[in-house]
């Protein structure tokens, strides 16, 4: 059976709450069956609204959402058969873990022995066997989270939505839960739409990430592509750390462009610039710039070290380079021979294809 390319399809979806402002603008998004897609964006970017429209708690103002080929705008939430994990777990506090998991099975009139098997399976999937008779209040945050995940999966939905499910957990637990959810997804092959504002979470877990800003999908691509090849400066700045230079294109030729910054020309990779005189913002990942560059690199400049911060596995070095005193370098700690001292002038180099000339905004 071939996996459907457009298992979930947002078709020209607009959403407005007050008739004045669009929170989601002309959303066009296809999600493949079995895929783990994350909607990532700052708060107020429209990502949760999209999820709520998919779940059926909000109606699109315009356009249509298709699930497995069927338009679902007129289907009420309880008939969509979509599992959902909520921000604060939304476990029913007056029911035991068992009853929480039995709820979706009971409303589907699944016989008790079959339901018990499903519940056992779901609980073992999140390694919570033996917790069936506990009340949610007696569980830790991480355990509650796992119950919520188990509950969203216990009735074998085609699609599971997760709305910032790890937001309330502490850092260590969050990371281990990320892997756990990822593994569950890999094991059972359910389609997951995940909403978060935490980019590292999105990068760790997803097959594809849709970066939302201002009601629009800025970029939809795999985590590595998103990180390595951001298509605009919002994505570049939102995902990972980023060094930027603002300047004006002085020449474009042979897949490279010259950008004039502080009276110096630097070479960059023209992504969204077309011609001379355009304003642009150059984005360069900190780990792509090197100290003591080899001669092969086509950009070599020197700057002054302003700050050195020790980070254990690496050292962050802040440099004043070409008028940008926020230029960050990540220096691995294995290269102990490097002579990094405050106030010293050093040479820094990078390849022009790593410096992406994007839109100036």
């Amino acid at each position: 059976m071939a996996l459907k390319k457009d298992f979930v399809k947002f078709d020209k979806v607009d959403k407005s709450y007050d008739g004045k402002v669009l929170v989601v603008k002309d959303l066009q998004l296809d999600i493949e069956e079995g895929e783990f897609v994350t909607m990532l964006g700052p708060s107020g970017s429209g990502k949760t609204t999209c999820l709520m429209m998919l779940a059926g708690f909000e109606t699109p103002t315009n356009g249509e959402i298709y699930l497995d080929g069927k338009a679902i705008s007129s289907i009420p939430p309880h008939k969509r058969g979509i599992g959902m994990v909520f921000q604060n777990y939304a476990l029913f506090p007056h029911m035991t873990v068992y009853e929480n998991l039995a709820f979706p099975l009971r409303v589907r009139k699944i016989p008790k022995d079959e339901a018990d098997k499903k519940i056992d399976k779901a609980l073992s999937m999140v390694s919570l066997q033996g917790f069936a008779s506990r009340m949610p209040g007696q569980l830790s945050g991480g355990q509650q989270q796992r119950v919520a995940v188990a509950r969203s999966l216990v009735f074998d939905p085609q699609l599971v939505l997760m709305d910032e499910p790890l937001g309330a957990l502490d850092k260590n637990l969050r990371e281990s839960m990320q892997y756990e959810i990822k593994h569950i997804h890999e094991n059972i092959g359910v389609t997951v739409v995940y909403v978060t504002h935490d980019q590292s979470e999105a990068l760790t877990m997803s097959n594809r990430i849709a970066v939302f800003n201002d009601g629009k999908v800025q970029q939809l691509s795999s985590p590595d592509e998103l990180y390595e090849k951001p298509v605009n400066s919002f994505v570049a700045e939102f995902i990972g750390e980023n060094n930027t230079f603002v300047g004006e294109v002085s020449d474009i030729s042979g897949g490279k462009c010259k950008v004039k910054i502080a009276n110096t020309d630097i070479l960059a990779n023209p992504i969204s610039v077309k011609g001379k005189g355009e304003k642009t913002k150059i984005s360069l990942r900190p780990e792509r710039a090197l100290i003591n560059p080899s001669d092969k690199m086509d950009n070599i400049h020197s700057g002054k070290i302003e700050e050195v911060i020790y980070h254990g596995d690496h050292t962050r070095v802040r440099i004043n380079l070409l008028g940008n005193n926020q230029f960050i370098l990540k220096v691995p700690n294995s290269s102990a021979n490097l002579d990094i001292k405050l106030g010293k002038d050093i040479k820094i180099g990078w390849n022009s294809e790593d410096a992406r000339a994007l839109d100036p905004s």
Partner: protein
Amino acid sequence: MSSETKQILTTDGIPLEVSLKKAERKNKIKAFLLVAPLLLFLIITYVFPIGDMLFRSVDDKMVTQMLPKTFKAMENWDGQELPDEEVFAAFHEDFIKLVENKREGKLSTQLNYTKNGFKSIIKKLRRKSKSFEEGNYKEQIMSVHKRWADVEYWRAIQRRAPEFTGQKYLKGMDMYVNEEGKIVSVEEDRRIHRVLWLRTLEIAFFVTVFCFLMAYPIAHLLATLPMKYSNLLMICVLLPFWTSLLVRTASWMILLQQQGIVNDFFVGIGLVADDNRPEMMYNKTGSYVAMTQILLPFMVLPLYSVMKTISPSLMRAGKSLGGTPFVAFWKVYFPLTIPGIGAGCLLVFILAIGYYITPALVGGASGTLISNQIAFHMKSTLDWSFASAMGLMLLSGVLVIYWLYNKIVGIDNIKLG
């Protein structure tokens, strides 16, 4: 496990418990001083009056003290036939003393509570006793009125001998101790209190039900509306709270009377004929309507405070898991509001069961409650011991309801805010 039994010492060698007590003492004293005014207030305004009420309801010393010699002489009387001369002589002696102190009127009132007919014969005895000769008081007293020769009346006097009595409680249940000392009900047409008790329970119950039915949607709306609307609605709910109870009851009188606004409206839309306007006041309907409106906030507020804490995502979760809106409501939302329902119902029921002003004003004859009867005995008949007895019966009824609630729902489940 010697370490468990060994006393743990602080670094300075003082036993840990002693040290802890010392450290906590200041806080304890502070805490006590903070609650002391309230404690004192409660003792003065609550414990003491209720104790006094309890005492008053069973106290029957008055007659005992008025006829000390009579009751002493009666100790040897078997109560079968008329007492002998000794009792009559003692009674005469006590009676003369009472007449000297002008207290024979009180005696007649008291004895009349026990048996009707004492008032007139004591009046007569006072007149005649002035010309009594010494000796043979039995003959002389019996000749005053034929009832003085009736053994029933002497038994009635004897029944007042004990210093304490439970008969006020029996009277509150329309029962009394008859001549043979058995507890029996009064004749059917005189059983006013039982009707009142039942009616009180009935009205309190239905007022609670009506309040619940009306308050639940309001509270839900309050808890789910955006802040700016819910604040406005909250003011609407609380506005009656800030208006005098009397004013509110009076406005219901304006609305509900036969020529009132509601009736005018019914006639206007042709629901009832002009010459056949329904009576909505001075009967149970009046009590129901006015009490429901007045007690509504007491139901809304606890419900609201509980609903406010229920995350809207729970209902969404219920729906996303496949429950219809009704199933999600019934299985998820409703069970979570039970603490609020319990608190609201208990509050409204207990307030309604002792409601006084509103039924007195709009209840008429068929809409008055037991509290109106208590007030009647406090103000009109001045039978305070009976009023106290009924007050205590009401109080114990409330305690029983509270106990039942605790048994069934659990009092720690209650939530007032």
